[in-house]
């Protein structure tokens, strides 16, 4: 049996924490059970790849990547995409703040409270 590297210990622990965090969000009703399931699948896959690197050989066979180095490049592209997507979400949050302002001004101008009486 090959010796276990620190990476193989830390990554599954991080995955476990991420899964626990995702399900704590489900418990707080901030995520649905379905989304909790999707996150569990994602982080489990990360942990499995860390614990059993040979899985990547099977992945390279299935996906057509010629070697592990290519798989690594693709993984980092995935990480970069994740960062870009996070930025998109941040931009959307700014858009939401803007919409909130437009909405509150619209409701104020319409004098909703007055007309309700």
């Amino acid at each position, binding site marked *: 049996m090959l010796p276990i590297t620190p990476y193989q210990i830390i990554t599954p622990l991080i995955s476990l924490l991420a899964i626990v965090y995702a399900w704590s969000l489900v418990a707080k*009703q901030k995520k*649905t059970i*379905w989304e909790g399931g999707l996150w569990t699948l994602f982080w489990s896959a990360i942990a499995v790849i860390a614990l059993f690197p040979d899985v990547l050989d099977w992945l390279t066979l299935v996906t057509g990547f010629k070697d592990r180095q290519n798989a690594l490049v693709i993984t980092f592209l995935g990480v970069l995409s994740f960062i870009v*997507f996070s930025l998109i979400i941040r931009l959307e949050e700014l858009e939401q703040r803007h*919409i909130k302002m*437009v*909405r509150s001004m*619209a409701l104020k*101008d319409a004098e909703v409270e007055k*007309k309700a009486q």
Partner: protein
Amino acid sequence: MSTSSSHIIAVIPAYNESKRIRSVVEGTSKFVDRVVVVDDGSSDDTATVAQRAGAFVVRHGENCGAGAATMTGIEAARALGAEVIVTLDADEQHDPKDIPALLQPLLSGQSDFVFANRFGQRNRIPLIRRFFNAVGNLVTFATTGRWVNDSQCGFKAFGPRAVAEVRIRMSGYEFCTELVRESVQKRWRVAQVPIKVLYSQYTLAKGQSFANGVKTALRILLRSFLR
């Protein structure tokens, strides 16, 4: 919940619909207590025409999208004391005569939220529309885990619980999928009611393009994953 005492308000988000909003407001008024039109930054007379037709009008200073306009309408309706809210499109695509059927599961206390289903009865729907809706349904199912026969239809009804709890954060057309997610997350009892749909050259031209549809699907998937 008694039928007679329920304060029912219709919310109609509208963008550049001055030619059609009058008939939609007049048709809808027959079935609800009040009609709220949200003019989403139109450059035409939508707000004036809607007001003349008897609607309570809320005006966005600029175009924010269908989801944002719908949420503004819901907030206005809440402030006006709505117990039940019906949302429908401003382009004459939905027949207001279907409102009673849509309200029935709410007023009988069986459901908290009702989805209209354009595919539940014989409607002349173009093939391309059917395809886009099927894709929308699949994306919605993938992100929410709930299958809805017509997840992308703007014709919906909210019961008292849904009126109190609903919160739409998505500004564009993806709010339809967000509402399915809300129904799952907040454990609303849902019903699906077949409705008539009236497609014209105008409504078809106004519909979402393929590029918009793809963009919407990507936004939905991303949001559900990164939320």
